[in-house]
């Protein structure tokens, strides 16, 4: 048995807002798995997509400061949101390659730049640090019979060579985690396609079109539900699903779970601890039908 796992935790803005159930289920799951999780005190926004589109120094500085704050807490940094994960890793990558930028950032944040800390997405923690074997041992309600379409979206593995989470274009890490908790995963075509992300506000038409293709593909592959590891993907697939069904006159009824919700279910957490009530597409009928509640 390895020693107890311990992480510092960077929830990111979405998890304190629209993705509250992701935050809740993460904390509850880690508690249940006896993995230490300490929220980084005084963390703030990573800058997400807007910052690096406007000002590179700003976006690097925001992440660098957060990394510096996180370094004061024991353990590797656990990140839930795919965008935060991508930005934090990109920052480490860019700053380790450019001394000029490193000096600029150091000046801007008035603190040392931390380049050697390990930034880990929750998927990595479950699939690698804890590992499928130990994860399987914690399961008391295997998700057998549940067919899940694992949706990676854009930023978990991209840009190339930055997150280093898994194979950039054909990853399997989500499937690996779900297999360990007894679920069935489907092979489908749109697992890596963009959902439109934050164009959801400025160009909703584009998002509806892209998201429809994703849901259509998942349904065609015979999935009962979709699993995501990013609050923006979740927003588009879950919140907009009703609207899409209206626009395209289709009926998907595909609940969109966070990774931590499905794994949490398998280790025996109840709906109240997983925030299932906050989901727009009600998952309860499906879970009851599969005997998982």
């Amino acid at each position: 048995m390895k020693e107890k796992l311990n992480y510092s935790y960077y929830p990111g803005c979405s998890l304190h807002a629209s993705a509250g159930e992701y935050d809740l289920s993460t904390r509850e799951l880690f508690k249940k798995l006896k993995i230490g999780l300490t929220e980084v005190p005084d963390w703030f926004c990573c800058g997400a997509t807007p910052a690096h589109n406007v000002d590179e120094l700003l976006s690097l500085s925001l992440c660098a400061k957060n990394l510096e704050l996180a370094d004061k807490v024991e353990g590797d940094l656990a990140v839930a949101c795919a965008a935060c994960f991508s930005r934090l890793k990109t920052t480490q990558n860019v700053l380790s390659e450019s001394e000029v930028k490193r000096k600029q950032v150091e000046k801007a944040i008035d603190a040392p730049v931390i380049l050697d800390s390990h930034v880990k997405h929750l998927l990595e923690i479950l699939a690698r640090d804890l590992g499928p074997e130990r994860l399987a041992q914690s399961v008391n309600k295997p998700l057998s019979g549940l067919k899940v379409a694992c949706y990676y979206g854009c930023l978990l593995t991209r840009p190339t060579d930055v997150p280093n989470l898994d194979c950039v274009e054909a990853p399997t890490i989500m499937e690996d985690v779900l297999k360990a908790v007894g679920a069935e995963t489907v092979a489908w075509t749109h697992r890596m396609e963009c959902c439109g992300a934050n164009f959801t506000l400025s160009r909703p038409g584009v998002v509806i079109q892209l998201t429809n293709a994703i849901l259509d593909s998942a349904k065609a592959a015979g999935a009962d539900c979709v699993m995501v590891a990013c609050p923006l993907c979740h927003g588009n697939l879950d919140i907009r699903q009703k609207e899409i069904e209206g626009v395209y006159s289709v009926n998907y009824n595909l609940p969109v779970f966070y990774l931590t919700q499905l794994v949490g279910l398998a280790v025996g957490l109840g709906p109240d601890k997983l925030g299932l009530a906050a989901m727009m597409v009600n998952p309860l009928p499906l879970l009851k039908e599969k005997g998982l509640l």
Partner: protein
Amino acid sequence: MSRIGVFVCHCGENISRTVDVERVAAQVGKLPGVAFATDYKYMCSDPGQNLLKKAIIEQKLSHVVVAACSPRMHERTFRKAVESAGINPFLCEMANIREHCSWVHENREEATVKAIEIVGMMVERVKKNRVLPTITVPVTKRSLVIGGGIAGIQAALDIADCGHEVVLVEREPSIGGHMAQLSETFPTLDCSQCIMTPKMVDVANHPKIKLYSYSEIELVEGYIGNFQVTIRKKARSVDEDKCTGCGLCMEKCPIKKIPSKFDCNLGMRTAIYVPFPQAVPNTPVIDRENCTKFKTGKCGLCQKVCGPGAVDYEQEDRLIVEPVGAIVVATGFDLYTINEKPKGSMIKGYGEFGHGKIPDVIDGMTFERLASASGPTGGKILRPSDGKEPKQIVFIQCIGSRAREKGISYCSKVCCMYTAKHTMLYHHKVHDGQAYVFFMDARTPGKSYDEFWRRSIEEEEAVYIRGMVSRLYQKGDKIVVMGSDIAVGVQVEIEADMVVLATAIQPQKGADTLAQKLGISYDKYNFYSEAHAKLRPVECATAGIYLAGACQGPKDIPDTVSQASAAAAKVMTLFAKDQLEREPIVARVREAGCVGCFYCKKVCPYGAVEEKEIRDRQGNLIRVVAYVNPGVCGGCGTCQATCPSKSVELDGYTDEQIVAMIEAL
């Protein structure tokens, strides 16, 4: 007392820009033993060399130091010049004040001081130089050619036509290589088999070529002019001398459903087989893994039907030693495997393209077999999944090539041309079909190449889309190709019936292992390295070993044939002399000091150290000492560093010389 001449070169401005060459000459001229010192703009030029020769005669010089570029560049030049003026060439040394000084420094004062020190060191060193006699070794005028593709065949034929014996070793049961698999060839669309098979027959019939098919290189020993090569002749289970090639055994073999590697798994073969009907030699081989006789002990049908009694289940691998003087390596290429991504490999796969999962996503070589008149479909373009003719076909270039994120940064050079050819072959066979090509750049340098490419667009109606494809997926019986057209800036989706991926060229599997056996160098992709990218493109840095074809880098057929003939010419240059002269930079044993511990023998990478018995006049053994065979010694100096009694010294690099250099600092 030595009379040393020092000649300081400006190298145009390469040295004089940073180093005060006049001051260097003036300073060094004051050193004890230096009789003459001067500087000149281009020492390596004709007037520069004449200045050197004149000074040697007029000043009665005994040793020479040329302070100029790296000895790798011009040591040979100056030693030759010195020799023509009557001094032993090994009494001339070069002080490298260009690569080691002027090119890497900016401060003129410091660089000048450093240059003076470098030259001073070489002055002290040259004082200790000894006259060394040139070593000659005999040349075995036979050559080994490794690989029986078009490169190996061309090299073997050229050498053999000059009257020298060639040992040609091919790993597969037949020679022919990849070229034998191709349908028609660019830029003339002549049939590959039609131009290839006559050459294969020439090899088989040539009295000077000894062909070992289904054989591999086991061990390579020796050195230029005198290699000993051990060849493993794998058990074919058919006696080549008895077999008449009638084919009855293959007709009767009950195991008929083994996917044929030659046909890219589209066709089937029997357990006793020749890879293709035009195979050379036309002798079948038994695939022991799939043969019922070898698996269960039963069957034996092929042996029963064989008239001449050639089938021999007891045959074993044989090891054969062949002495040769030169080696041509022509091991060719392999195609990038689209999905394979071994853990930890620097090269990654394209899982997102569904190759191997979607049956109608194929690679370029598979398309060649479909288009080939002798292929599994008789030259009809048919989908592997349902045998239907594809009406919309998409070709995607640069699969693996130029994709740094997948681990390969080089261009595979042939794909633009063969994809253009594929669109033409397709258009010739499917008149109502439409071909699309996704490409990054069209690279068509070569005689009549760009015209050929233009033809595919202008006359054969291929639609070229500049951009890459992100994903392929099956939708019903169509394959959806999701890509981008960067010229227009839009996303493109095509519903195709078949997709052909132009995969990167990689060296053959095991190229690195063979290189280690041969002692030649290779790059990070396992392509073999030439001695000089521009001026010695077919020679290896290891003397006596030459390169031909795609084992050195991606190449098309014309380039491969040219390089193969060039390699043959280099072999002929070597064979033009009966004796080889080689540099006398070899280790020598001082027998009086040698205690016979043979540590030197253990560390010698060339196997040059032998045991020598010292006997008195009555023939009684007194002791055993080490002896370095000067023909084999590579001059690395490892023995010198190892010898506990300091009894081995490398000529030209003795301890005395090195210590003198250090003391001069």
